Structures are given as structure tokens and as C-alpha cells.
């Protein structure tokens, strides 16, 4: 019988939540890597038993863990993330040049075709690639050495490369997003990159529609239409129908267009989800009501989804990598909160229930749909 495996990264370890296709009874295992920050855990689409995890702390640095048995056992993989050549500088908060310094891996993106291939998005912003299951890492330095790189500046959370999307139609096409440099695209497998931020407007910038400098929080796509992108920017929900060449705002009737997470329904490419957050200084939902908003028109017209979610006194956040969908016939939608809850809807968002309620702050949620 089909089922799901939900991979949860938290501030104090990782957890694995499993269920059958009904998604009403759950088995919880963890914490894995207890006490460590686990920014991201993601499985290979080719071999679901292969899972990668990013494990780090301010004390002991970065490790990469790999499981080859669906998360039952783990082995440390390689943790040498050396920038290619002399890394140079980017802008610091005060505008002075600051050397590129590796801090941690924010996001791991296993290949769509080869279980040994995986990309890693890191802070300070750069993209690394492994072709041997995470043992060795090589920087795809064309991104960091882009002519605008020296002007990139960190956001409050650090200068992180947090989003990696590989086109299922053309693996040479990769999208990434960096806070707070913006979105970039390569069409040659990572050798050369160009900013794709035309149409973004950010009031915090001296030039509101600058080529780079936008605080992109997350981008999502549907695998059947990899040139249609949906973006949750710091403020504004955006859409591109031309692989990021241009963007239009689709925030529409959202109660707040600030937020972090955004995702696309597994079977309906025009159905998208966001979780509005009040503001950049008030990282909690408007009115203390935890509401997922769904648009079935690819934006602009949004409906609140509230059944089973707290509608009073709720002041948690939902971070950028903390929403995911499964691909069962009735699409499951999942998200985790900084209050340690992981919610599931087994019916595309109509009804929600908590899987767990008291984990450490959730940093990421990914779902594997198992045959």
C-alpha cells in the first residue's frame, strides 16, 4: 500500500513521520542528530531509501549525513565545502567588503535522475555539487563569481542560498534564490548564471527594481510546467510564466503578502499555497489565526484554509523550507511551524490536523511519496 514519509528538520534534530496513504495515523521517530540544527532533510526522487541531511551547530560546524535505508541508519558523508579559488568579498551589513565565509548548508537538492548526484545551497551564498553521494563537493562557482556577486549583501538571517529547483524537462536549467541577492538561473548546468529579477519591486532597496538585492524567500514550480514559477518574496507573492525572465505580482486579496513558504499542488499546476505572515518584524500570522491560503488560479484570488488550524492566539512562524506536498491521488499538503507543530491536510488543504505538536522549532519539511 502506498504511504508517505515526512522528513522534518528542526533546531534540535530531525524527525521522520510515516503513515499509510490515508495519512490519519502516524509513526514518529527521532530525534536524529539530537541537539544539532538540521536545516534540511531530503530524499532522492530516484531512490527513496537514499536521504541526505544537513546537520550543523555553531559549536562544531557542518556535517552531511546520508541514509541508504530510508532513514533507519545514517553515515556521515563529506563536509568539505571549499569555495573555488580565492573567494573574494561580498558586501557586509555596513557596506564594507566582507570575505566569503562558509557557515552552513541550508538546502540539499537530490538529482531527479541520479541518486549519487546532489546539489547543496550554502551560506555564504554558493552552490555546491556532489556526484558521489555527498562524499565530495565541488563549487559551481559561476554563480558566486557573477559580476554582481561583490554587491550581494546578507539579510538578517545570513546570506544564504536556500532554493534550488532543477527543471525536469531540461536538467541544464537550474533556478536558485539567495537572501538577499535575488533569483538566478543557469541554462548550462551551472557554468554561467544570470539574475532573473525583472518585475520585482522591493521598497527596502534604493533602486526598488534593481537587478539584484531582492530578498527572495522561496520559489516553487510544478514539474509539468518548469518555466512557470511562483515566488514568495519578503513582501509580495510573484509569478513568472517565462522561466523568471519577468515577474508579476499575484498577492491579490491575501491579508498579508509577507511570508516565507510557497508550494504548488501535486496535480493542479495552477493551485498554489502560501502562509501569510504579518510583517518582517512580526513573524506570526495576522490576527493570531494560522491560515494557509490557496489560490486555484495561480494567484490573485486566494481563499483561507482554516479547518483544523488554530484560529486564535497563534503566534508561530512557518519558515521557507517548511512546506511540502505529496503526490498521492488526493494531494497531501504539509507544513511545520516554529512552535513545533507539523500539520497535514490529506485533501489538498480543506481539512488539517496536527501530526505532532511539540517538536523543536521546525526549519524544514519534505515529503516522500512511497509506492
Amino acid at each position, binding site marked *: 500500500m502506498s504511504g508517505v514519509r515526512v522528513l522534518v528538520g528542526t533546531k534540535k534534530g530531525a524527525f521522520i513521520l510515516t503513515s499509510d496513504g490515508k495519512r490519519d495515523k502516524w509513526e514518529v521517530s527521532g530525534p536524529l542528530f539530537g*541537539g544539532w540544527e538540521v536545516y534540511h532533510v531530503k530524499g532522492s526522487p530516484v531512490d527513496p531509501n537514499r536521504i541526505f541531511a544537513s546537520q550543523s551547530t555553531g559549536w*562544531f*560546524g*557542518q556535517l552531511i549525513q546520508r541514509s541508504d535505508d530510508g532513514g533507519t541508519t545514517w553515515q556521515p558523508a563529506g563536509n568539505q565545502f*571549499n569555495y573555488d579559488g580565492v573567494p573574494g568579498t561580498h558586501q557586509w551589513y555596513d557596506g564594507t567588503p566582507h570575505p566569503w*565565509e562558509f557557515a552552513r548548508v541550508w538546502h540539499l537538492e537530490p538529482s531527479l535522475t541520479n541518486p549519487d548526484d546532489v546539489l547543496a545551497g550554502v551560506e555564504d551564498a554558493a552552490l555546491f555539487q556532489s556526484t558521489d553521494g555527498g562524499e565530495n563537493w565541488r563549487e559551481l562557482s559561476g554563480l558566486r563569481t557573477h559580476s554582481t556577486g561583490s554587491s550581494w549583501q546578507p539579510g538578517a538571517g545570513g546570506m544564504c542560498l536556500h532554493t534550488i529547483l532543477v527543471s525536469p524537462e531540461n536538467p541544464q536549467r537550474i533556478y536558485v534564490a539567495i537572501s538577499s541577492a535575488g533569483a538566478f538561473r543557469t541554462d548550462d548546468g551551472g557554468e554561467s548564471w544570470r539574475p532573473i529579477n525583472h518585475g520585482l519591486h522591493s521598497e527596502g532597496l534604493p533602486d526598488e527594481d534593481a537587478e539584484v538585492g531582492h530578498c527572495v524567500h522561496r520559489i516553487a514550480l510544478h514539474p509539468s510546467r518548469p518555466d512557470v514559477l511562483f515566488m514568495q518574496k519578503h513582501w509580495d507573492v510573484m509569478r513568472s510564466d517565462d522561466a523568471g525572465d519577468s515577474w508579476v505580482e499575484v498577492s491579490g486579496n491575501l491579508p498579508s503578502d509577507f511570508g516565507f513558504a510557497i508550494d504548488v499542488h501535486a496535480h493542479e499546476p495552477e493551485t498554489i499555497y502560501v502562509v501569510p505572515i504579518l510583517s518582517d518584524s512580526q513573524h506570526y500570522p495576522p490576527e493570531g489565526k494560522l491560515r494557509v491560503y490557496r489560490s486555484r488560479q495561480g494567484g490573485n484570488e486566494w481563499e483561507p484554509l482554516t479547518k483544523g488550524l488554530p484560529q486564535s492566539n497563534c503566534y508561530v512562524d512557518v519558515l521557507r523550507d517548511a512546506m511540502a506536498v505529496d503526490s498521492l491521488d488526493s494531494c497531501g499538503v504539509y507544513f511545520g511551524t516554529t512552535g513545533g507543530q507539523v500539520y497535514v491536510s490529506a485533501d489538498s488543504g480543506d481539512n488539517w490536523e496536527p501530526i505532532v505538536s511539540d517538536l523543536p522549532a521546525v526549519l524544514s519539511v519534505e515529503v516522500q511519496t512511497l509506492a
Partner: protein
Amino acid sequence: MIRVVLPAHLKTLAHVQGEVELEVTGALTQTSVIDALEAKYPVLYGTIRDPATQKRRPFIRFYACEEDLSHEAPDAPLPEAVASRTEPFFVIGAMAGG
């Protein structure tokens, strides 16, 4: 052989309990001890020293013989009591809380 005490998280990573016994060749220094530690337990590579700079991580300290040796030169000789196994070499994770 010398004795090394690791912080709890590094013991977990290395799958060890109690003190670690290490064979160190050549001069006994912070550098040679950590080199030997990483050679015996590859999972610890990069957890004590930054892989890029080889500098001690900011929240790691080195103690021995009731002294904080963290700011000694990495290649300075360690106390004779460590070499003779009378005292262990401590790798400490800085305390934090709140």
C-alpha cells in the same frame, strides 16, 4: 598513547564512550593531537577546526592540567603530564544556555 576527553556531541559522532586513547607521532601539540584524532575518527574532521582555515572553532576550547591552552600557539608543546598520560587533553564545547 595519550588520553583525550571529547564533548558529548563529538563522542556521539565518533561512537565512543569515556576517554579516547590516541597514538600521536612526532611532537605533542594541539595540531598533532587534533590531526591524530581526525585520522582515527574521520567523522570529526572539521568539527574542532574550521576546515578552510584550520583554526580552532570559536566555541571550542582546549584544556589540560587545569589550564586553558586555547590561546597557545597550535604548534606549542603540550604539558609533559599529557604526554605521560597523567592528565588528559580536554576538547571543550563552550557552555551556552538561556
